[in-house]
Each structure stands twice: as C-alpha cells, then as structure tokens.
C-alpha cells in the first residue's frame, strides 16, 4: 500500500516536471528532450525482446518506420496528401485514413504489432538465431516497399508537412507510460517467464512455459511501442523518407541497451540520456578537425566508428553494462549490501 502511494506520487511529480518543462523550456532544449524521450521509448521496448527475453533481434528500424508511416498517413489531411503525392495519386484508403493524434499514434503501434505477429511464426518456431537475420532483412525490405509503393508512401520523396502534434508533454508522458508498462511486465509472471526463456529455454519449458508464446508476446510488445515511438518521431520531425529508418537507428538503440545493461529497464533509460548526450557531444568527430596542423576534412561516420568500437569493447570487457540485468533500486540495494559486508 505504502509503495503504491509512493509510486503514484512519483508519477504525478514526473508528469508535473514534464508539463513544466513543456511550457517553460526553450525550443532547442525541448527538441533535445523530445529526441531523448522518443529514444527512451524505443530503447525500453527494444530491451524487452533483446535484454529481458534474450532473443537477439534487429527490428527497431523496421517497426519504427511502420509506425511513422501509419501515424503520418492518419495525421496528414486528405487535401494535403493529394498535393503531396507527386509520383502517383494516393490510394483511396490513404485518403480515408484520418484520425486525431492519440488514435493515430495507437494505430502506428498496432500496425507494427501485427507485422511482428506475422514475423514470429517463421522465426520463433525454429531454434537458432534466425530472429536476428530476419529482422535485419526486414529493416531493408521495409525500405524497398516504401520506395515501390508510392500510392501509399509517396516513394522516395517521403511524407512531409506531418502535423507537429508531438510536443514534450505527449512524448514525455508516453515515455513515462512505456517505462511503467515495461517494469510491470518485468515484475509479473510474463517477465519472469521471459527471463526464464533467456536463461535456459529447456528449463523454462520444463516449468510449463510455452516459450514460443512468450517470445511472441515479448516481440509484439516491443513492436507496439516501437510503432508508437515511430509515430511520435514522424510527428516530431514532420518529414519522413524511406532512407531515414536505416540500420543506424537500430545500432544506436543496441548501444543504449548494452550500455544500460541488457534486461535493465532503468538502465536503458539512463543509457539513453548518456548515449544521446554523447552523440551530440561527439558531433565534432564527424567534422573537419585540425590535427598536428593538418586539416582532416569532414568524415561522416567517425562517430559511428567510435561507437562500434565502444560496443565491441563493452561486449569483451564489460558485458553487464551499467546495471547488469537489475533495475536501479535493486542495483543500489545490492551495492549497499556489499558495502555493509565489507
């Protein structure tokens, strides 16, 4: 009971801070916060399938793209679509897709969830690491579809003038909502079963767990929130193109969940702030530098070289990331306990 009250107060406090920030902070700071909020939603949901359930998946960019396109199509007014679709006329259904903000975001999530269900059958019925390769492939395929179905996606030109409804109040609140949902999943029979599947699939089966079902549930949940994140991203950026949802997005999220500690939701949250912050901070690496009196020239991708090395080093020497697979309060408790013992 006491815990429930503390939890309620914490939620209200966070919502208060979000609403305060949304009204008072300048637009540059807010855009950084919005970015962090969206990435937090993505990292938390990615962590559920990869970290908690231990199924190596590379899906985020594909599902984010689906969510972004579906949400965008629901948000853009029909008249604007007719103007915008330059290659071919928009399909009738595209013109009919109209919804308010929250239902549009929800639809993005649902679309991604359905695709996840479809992908579950081939990948989870067999043992092995096919999930990774199928989801990696899917990320590329979705781009091919976006390019080849201009009546729905406007092809390579993408969608623009997407209504910018996604302010920090929405993004921050939905990030908080995602965190709560994820923690509730982790601390339920479903979360326990997901961890059991990760630790030892045979033993999990021997406990009566239907591992196919549990993996599918985790994958669909991840997909839903990635779709939601995609919808928010579309409305936040107001323009989307097929090339935007490249593997880079998935890679950034992978770095985040590894740094936070695979399986730790609070870890993913902290790592989102750290990684997104250092992405900004390391921007200079991609730019022209003067080293020993010589110009190095611009080299986009340098930051990613650094992050790739970071990822490999973490895997080799610090596999547990910041918090291991514990949540922040447990982590602190364990640290304090150890200190007591010493």
């Amino acid at each position: 009971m006491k815990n429930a009250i503390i939890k309620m107060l914490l939620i209200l406090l966070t919502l208060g801070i979000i609403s305060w920030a949304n009204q008072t902070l300048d637009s540059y700071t807010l855009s950084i916060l919005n970015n962090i909020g969206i990435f937090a939603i993505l990292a938390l949901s990615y962590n559920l399938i990869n970290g908690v359930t231990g199924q190596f998946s590379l899906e985020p960019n594909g599902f984010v793209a689906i969510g972004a396109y579906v949400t965008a199509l629901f948000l853009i007014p029909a008249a604007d679509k007719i103007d915008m679709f330059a290659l071919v006329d928009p399909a009738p259904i595209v013109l009919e897709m109209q919804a308010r903000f929250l239902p549009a975001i929800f639809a993005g999530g649902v679309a991604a969830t359905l695709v996840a269900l479809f992908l579950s059958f081939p990948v989870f019925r067999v043992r092995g690491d096919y999930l990774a390769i199928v989801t990696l492939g899917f990320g590329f395929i979705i781009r091919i579809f976006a390019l080849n179905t201009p009546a729905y996606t406007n092809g390579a030109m993408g969608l623009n003038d997407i209504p910018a409804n996604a302010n920090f109040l929405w993004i921050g609140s939905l990030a908080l909502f995602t965190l709560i949902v994820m923690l509730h999943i982790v601390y339920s029979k479903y979360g326990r079963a997901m961890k059991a599947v990760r630790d030892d699939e045979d033993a999990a089966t021997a406990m009566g767990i239907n591992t196919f079902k549990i993996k599918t549930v985790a994958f669909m949940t991840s997909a839903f929130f990635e779709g939601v994140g995609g919808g928010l991203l579309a409305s936040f950026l107001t323009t989307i193109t097929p090339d935007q949802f490249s593997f880079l997005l998935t890679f950034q999220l992978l770095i985040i969940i590894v740094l936070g500690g695979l399986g730790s939701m609070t870890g993913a949250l902290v790592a989102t702030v750290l990684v997104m912050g250092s992405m900004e901070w390391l921007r200079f690496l991609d730019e022209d530098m003067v080293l020993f009196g010589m110009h190095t020239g611009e080299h986009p991708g340098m930051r990613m070289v650094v992050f790739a090395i970071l990822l490999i080093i973490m895997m080799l020497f610090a596999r547990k990331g910041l918090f291991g697979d514990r949540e922040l309060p447990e982590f602190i408790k364990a640290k304090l306990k150890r200190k007591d013992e010493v």
Partner: protein
Amino acid sequence: MDLTTFLQQLINGASLGSMYALIAIGYTMVYGVLRLINFAHGDIMMVGAFFTFMATAAGLPFTLAVLLGILGSVIVGVLTDKIAYKPLREAPKISLLITAIGISFFLENLFNVIFGGVPKAFSAPDYLTKIFHLGDVYLPITVIIIPIVTVAILSGVLWVLYRTKYGMAIRALAFDIPTVKLMGIDADRIITLVFALGSALAAVGGIFYAVSYPSIDPLMGVIVGLKAFAAAVLGGIGSVTGAVIGGFILGFTEIFVVALFPELGGYKDAFAFFFLILVLLFRPTGIMGEDLERSRF
C-alpha cells in the same frame, strides 16, 4: 520467353548465383563450427573488393591486386575472429551476436570514413571488359568467367573439406567442439582456417561483384551478405553443398522473376527475404540441411 532470352538469363543467373554461392559458404561454415551468424561476413567481402581497388589504384597488375584483395579479406576475417569472437566462445550467445554486429558496423563506417560513401568506379583490366555476341546472346566475358572460376574454386573447397584431414577436422568440429578438443585437434586452429577460407571466398565474390557492376561502396556487403545468408539457410545452414545450391537458386530466381515479371524489378532485393521466411516456415533445415534444429525442447 524465346530461347535466346532464356539462354541469356540462364547465363546471367549463373553468374549472379556464383557470387551468392561464394559468399554463402563463409556463412555456412562459420555457422557450422561456431553456431554464429557472422554479420560481418558481408563486410569482409566489401573489404576484399576495396583492397583490390586500392591495389589497382596504386598501379599494381590486376592479378596481383586480386591476390592482395583476397589476402586483405583473409587477414581482416581471421583478426575479427581472434580479437572479437574468440574471447567470447564461452559467453552467452547474444554477446557473440552483438559483437558480430559491432564488427560489421565498425567495418562499414571505417571504410565510409576512409573512402567516403560515394560509390567508386572499379576499373577492371581490358581483357575482363570484353563482350561477346553469340547470335543474339550478349555475353560480357565476366558472366562466362565467373561461373567457371566459381565451379573450379568450389571443387577445390569440397576437395579440402572431404579429402583432407583439415576438412575432416572442420566437419568434425561442426559436429561437436568439446569432443573434437578431446581428440587432440587444435579447435582454434581449425576455426582460424574456417574464417580464412570463408573470407577468401567472400573476397572472390566481392571482386566478381566489383568487376560486374562495376562500382563499389562501403555498404555493398550489407544487402549481398543478407542475400547470401538467405541462400545458406535455403540450402540448409551448415551444409557447404547446400550453400552453393541455395546461392544458385537465389541467383536464378532473381534473374528469371525479373525477366518474366519486369514490374517486380523494384522488389528484386526482397526475394531473398521471402525465401528465408518460406524456408523457415516450411522446411527450417533447408534443402540439404541436417536435422540440426529438431529438438522439441
């Protein structure tokens, strides 16, 4: 489709299939011994093409450049295993897969930083750009050479695998690493051999790609790698013959589907993916695969 077009497409398909087959072997062998999808394998192919490109740009004769390209791939491939995969042999599987993705992303971006993302024109020597006309069939010399060289290389690989003690060790390792270690075989040396062989074949595939298209870029290995992996699964992951068959099936399918249904041309790169899904749904062990996955745990 008349006979001429058919022949034309058949030859094109064989040439494309050769490339997939060469790359698929690396995936299937590494998967066989380590149960690892080596995500960096497609990039190893890219590395081979780029090393060859640099060597030709430096004015070296083409044959030497090709050898250097192969050597470059082999070195990078073996180093990848030594530095990144070997320390993780006992670690959870997911760590190994994440590391493989890290290596892949590292190589792509490193080459992107060094060479820039703009595709580079790959200049092959004159004798490789000749075009023959056989009746109405249009035959760039490469589409003839590629399948022939591939078949020669593949026979060599199969000979190594089935007729030498190294090949026997590789096949034994695919069966059971701990037991092989007990039998006094140096498993790490064999794994190195697998990476070297796979990388060399990938480099040849990469050079074929570079000569045929004829341009290269740091991301060229991504989609080709993905397709080659699909080919390996189609043939039955773990089986070298299967990888070759899978590679050719994929090559022929891509060419013939586009020839018969030109409106599907935009989806060409997606065929491999649908193959992958279909195989996993209906015959997870692939065409030639052993029943690796059938445990009902």
